[in-house]
Structure formats: C-alpha cells, structure tokens
C-alpha cells in the first residue's frame, strides 16, 4: 500500500474501532442491567409470592 492509502485506512479504522468500542461498552451495560432486572424480579417475587 502506498503512503496515502495507509493513512486513509488508518483514519477509517480509527472511526470503525471507536464505534465498535462504544457498542461493546453499551453491550456490557445492557448485560449489567439485565442482571439487575433479574435481581429485582426476584425481590418482587419475594414480596408477593402468590402472584406468579
């Protein structure tokens, strides 16, 4: 690859990787929220065990 092409690839790679990292962070947050929701559902069940 010539010099110019390398820089072009670098720039687009940086953008791509940044967006992917952002998605990964959101995914991690989502799984944490999922765990919390499950925990809270458990707490709610304990309070009203008759309501399945």
């Amino acid at each position, binding site marked *: 690859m*010539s*010099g*110019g*092409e390398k*820089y*072009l690839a*670098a*720039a*687009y790679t*940086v*953008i791509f990787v*940044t*967006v992917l990292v*952002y998605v990964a962070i*959101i995914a991690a*947050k*989502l799984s944490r*929220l999922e765990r*919390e*929701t499950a925990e*809270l559902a458990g*707490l*709610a069940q304990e*309070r009203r065990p008759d309501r399945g």
Partner: protein
Amino acid sequence: MSTSSLNRSGFGSPVPLLAVLASGLVGIALALVFFVAPEDADQGLSQKIFYFHVPIALTAYACFGWGAFKALLLLWRKEERYDLESYVAVHQGTIFGALTLATGSIWAKASWGHWWLWSENQLVLFLVLFLFYSAYFMLRFSIEEGPRRANISAVYALFGIALVPVSFLAIRLAENVIHPTVFTREGPQMTGTMFFTFCVAWVAISALAYALYRLELLGKRLDSNLRELREALSS
C-alpha cells in the same frame, strides 16, 4: 419519577429504527466515498479522509450545541430530564471531538507530513474544546448528584458553546490559515460528485450520532428507573 422515553409512546423506543437508518446511511456513504467519488488531483487517495473527518467535526459542534440547548431548557423549565439529555449530548460531542482530533491528525500527517500542526486552526480549536469538555466530566463527577450538579453542569455547557466562536476568533487572530479551504465564500471547491458524497456522509454521521445519543439516553434512563425500582422494593 422522570418521564422516560420508555413509556411516552406506545410503540417503544425509536432506537432500533434509528440504528438501522444510521447503518444504512453510513453504508451508502462508504460506498460513495470509495467507489463513486473521484480521486483528488492534488492530495490523492488520502483526501478521502475528508469525507468523514469534516462531518465528524460538524457533528461534534452540533452535539455541543444540542447539549447547550438542553442545558438552557433545564435552567429555564427546571425539568429533570433535560439534565440527562444535556449530559449525553456533551458526552457524544466529546467522543466525536476526540475522533475529529484523531482523524484530523491522520489527515495532517498524510497531507503535510506532521502529526500535529499548531497552524491548523480547526485542530487547535478542537483541542481547546476537548480540554474544556473533558473538564465538564471531571466537574460533573466531583459534585453530588442533585439539582446543584444539574445546574452547574448546565451553566458550564452554555459556557462551552460561547467558547466555540470566541476560540475560533482567537485562533484565527493568532495564526495563518493553511487548512485546505474546501468551502470558500464562492461555494464548495469540489466537483458535484464530491459534494454529493460529502453531503451523504454528513447526513450519515449525523444519523449515527443521533442514534448513539438516543441509545445512550435509553440506557441511562433504564439505569435510573431500575435504581428507583430497587429503592421502592427494598423499602
């Protein structure tokens, strides 16, 4: 209880649709950039960085402006939700600002051989703004959550948007402009195809920023709702 985007409309969050739209537009923009837009005579292939670099910079400004707008609404209407919206907008702006610095630096290296140029007004302006908005997060996370933090963050966000034109003027006064003036007063100095590609890329990046903004907002509201639920359940 803050009004969240979760229960406002009956159709659920617009985030998935926004994400699909943004992906589609970015895909089209990339195709245009690499297969349709003609190669620049002077700068060669590395000129194509510009199709994403400038929209990212413009979008960063837009995010900071959006954040300042929400901040103004917070100070005026005093509704809690504006604080979160302002914060997320500033957060997006900072991410896009960092991307502007990264892509701008690569473009500078490709075009003029240096990773950083003090004579590059746009880069220097973004550096100042990046420093300013990084301090926003330090400020915000060193204050107890509550109306005081919301108000102070809002005032700071407004200062940021005032800083943009002032810094721009300052940097212009101080240095020579060697940033390739692609847009001059006569209009864009590019061919029609290049301009069309640029516009598509701009819309695509804006859509991406808005989708990410709504996504982050959704996550944070969910977080806050769950915390309230937890408090309600454990009492």
